């Protein structure tokens, strides 16, 4: 399965490019899907350690608001992406120092609490954040090049795709490094890790910071694509959505989040178009079906299709 992962990745990327050429609105949906996929990489990393963050929308929203706030001053997509990544990483370090002490439900709920506090702040600090009206993000230059709207949208799509591939490869390396292997140790028997002299909290913290960074990058890309940010990005259901995508995709390889995100966005569009007032039910039912009948998610399915040698 691991061998065919790169091939699958290239195929998926090619399919996305073809679809984006075919239909401009799909390009938009797919850029969002890529952005969410990048954010979900972080969820997957924490899942490897057996921890569920029910509050990672915090970093997505933070990245998005970094873009919205700094865009007038730091008017370049590349710089803003870097700023969002660094900002989210610092925030992740700060919060991570606190939450990495906790496990399971406490870990999940503390993250949820942080995320909801951020949501409330976005609503409360109305004069800075414009509350639920949100902040508009204008088309911005990319790496110093002023672009028209269509070229800009292509550029962001391209950046998202490149980042998805790049971050996917990096995380794959990370997971197979000793640090990554130790993550899995936290899930099975944390005490054993410590007997071996591996500081579990440090391992989890580093994964947490990485997950915050990719969350921030995902959020920045969402802001650059939808070009309007609102506090809803940080609501608890948005966090649930990220976990949803992670499970839909399957927690196996780094491709899972992208499979999951693409499937999630497409199901949602399809459901919204066909049954505008019951899209939630369709999404929920789709997830139930995957969990009950296709454990391992889409990635697991892909694995079985590719010769039944899933993890």
């Amino acid at each position, binding site marked *: 399965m691991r061998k065919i992962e790169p091939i699958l990745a290239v195929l998926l990327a090619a399919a996305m490019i*073809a*679809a984006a050429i*075919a*239909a*401009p*609105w*799909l390009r*938009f*949906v797919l850029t*969002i899907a890529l952005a969410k996929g990048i954010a979900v990489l972080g969820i997957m990393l924490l899942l490897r350690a057996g921890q569920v963050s029910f509050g990672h929308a915090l970093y997505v929203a933070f990245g998005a608001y970094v873009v919205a706030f700094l865009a007038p001053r730091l008017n370049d997509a590349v710089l803003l992406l870097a700023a969002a990544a660094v900002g989210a990483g610092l925030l992740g370090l700060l919060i991570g120092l606190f939450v990495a002490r906790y496990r399971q439900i406490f870990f999940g709920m503390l993250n949820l609490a942080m995320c909801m506090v951020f949501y*409330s702040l976005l*609503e*409360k600090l*109305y004069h800075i954040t*414009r*509350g*639920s*009206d*949100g902040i*508009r993000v204008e088309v911005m230059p990319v790496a110093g090049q002023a672009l028209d*709207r269509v070229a800009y949208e292509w550029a962001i799509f391209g950046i998202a795709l490149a980042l998805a591939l790049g971050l996917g490869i990096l995380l794959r390396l990370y997971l197979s490094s000793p640090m990554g292997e130790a993550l899995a140790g936290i899930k099975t028997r944390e005490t054993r890790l410590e007997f071996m002299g591996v500081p579990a909290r440090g391992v989890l913290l580093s994964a947490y910071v990485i997950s915050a960074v990719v969350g921030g990058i995902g959020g920045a890309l*969402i802001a650059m*694509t*939808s*070009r*309007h*940010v*609102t506090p*809803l*990005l940080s609501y608890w259901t*948005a966090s649930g959505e990220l976990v949803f995508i992670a499970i839909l995709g399957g927690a196996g390889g780094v491709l899972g989040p992208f499979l999951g995100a693409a499937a999630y*966005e*497409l199901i*949602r*569009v*399809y459901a*919204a*178009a*066909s*049954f*505008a*007032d019951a*899209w*939630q039910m369709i999404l929920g039912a789709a997830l139930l079906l995957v969990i009950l009948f296709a454990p391992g998610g889409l990635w697991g399915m892909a694995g079985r299709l590719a010769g039944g040698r899933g993890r």
Partner: protein
Amino acid sequence: MTASLTRREALAAGFGTVLLPATLSAQPAQKPAEFKIGVTTFLSGPASVFGVPSRKACELLVEQMNAAGGIAGVPLRPIFVDEAPGTDHLVGEFRRLVQSEGVHAMFQSISSGSCLACTPLSRELQKLTILWDCGTQRIFEENRWDYAFRTQGYGTPEVLAPLLYLLKTKPNIRTLAVINQDYAWGRDSWELWKAAMDALKPGVRVVAEMFPRFGSTDFSTEITRLLALRPDVIYSTSWGGELVTFVRQATERRLHERSTFVLPVAEASLPALGRSMPEGHIIGTRGDHWNNHPAPANPQLFASFVNAYRQRFNEWPIYPCHHMAQALWALKAGLEKAVAAKNGGWPSDAELANAFRGLTFPTPTSTITLREDGQGLEDQIVGLSSFNERFPFSVPKEMMLFPGAQVSAPVGQKSTDWLKTLTPDFIQQAGRSI
């Protein structure tokens, strides 16, 4: 179900047939077989109390219009999209509707956040966009839009009219408390009210500013505090379930005997409140379309819309239904004007949008003019809650009408700046009893 089937097919075509250019706006204008309207509205979540009735009204009116031959001989087809999932989804849906479904006009949205996010798309995609319900003043005060028009009033007149009514009928108020939902409309509508009140009647003391969480189901603590403070006036622009909950908890504890409520968005919650709405408090409807309007401009049309809605859905229409109807009537007037300008030819997107600038279209109650900046001027009627035999719920009495032009900020001025220029004389000049 046939509609959703074809929509599904259209979507399948979007995924499947790969190399079909989907942008229609660049092609020479041809008379379409049907005029598709993309409608964004809340179909889930707390704001679906507005969204679902508006959708019903839209379907009803479109059916009636199609039975009468459509607009300019073309039948209409609305395609609905839920606003609730959030901006990133909605912006994507807007694009899908324009670029893949090929809608000819967009009707958006209930939430101001949605409007602020989507209105720029009207320019990018060059598609006529009618803002059918959202109230934020920022849209037309901070930008100029060639393709976007709002076919109803907005926050400023909707807040100013009840304030003027209050100051006309109770000139001696000294203290006031506000309890609004904690989101943009709750904050905006307070800022507008405060600016206008400080200009029109300086010296009114604000004894409490409370913004409970959006979606709260318990206001007893806030009510206790208000009972202890005894402000002369309690101002709240809350709506939906929260307003119902607040009024019921407050009246049960006799808060309405200590303070006068000013509720500019009350109308939509009055049917749900029924007889438990207290009498003698100031209520608004975000416009002039009260079910007991004493002198509608076109009584037959008004009665036929209200009765058809009641017969079909077994409930009274609320203001979002009227706002949706206004958008459709505006579309009819604008499209017919554009077709007439081309001597029966079909207008391009730009020509269609141009027809709306300065357009005056009739509503059952009055007329609405779309100003130079795209903002509609809708009259506001405010009154005191009361009961009569015709309605199983509260309706206004001692109504006053404030013409839209009088209570809206002039073109090119920001509302908060304009409100600060008002003087106490304005109270007497504004509005008239009806």
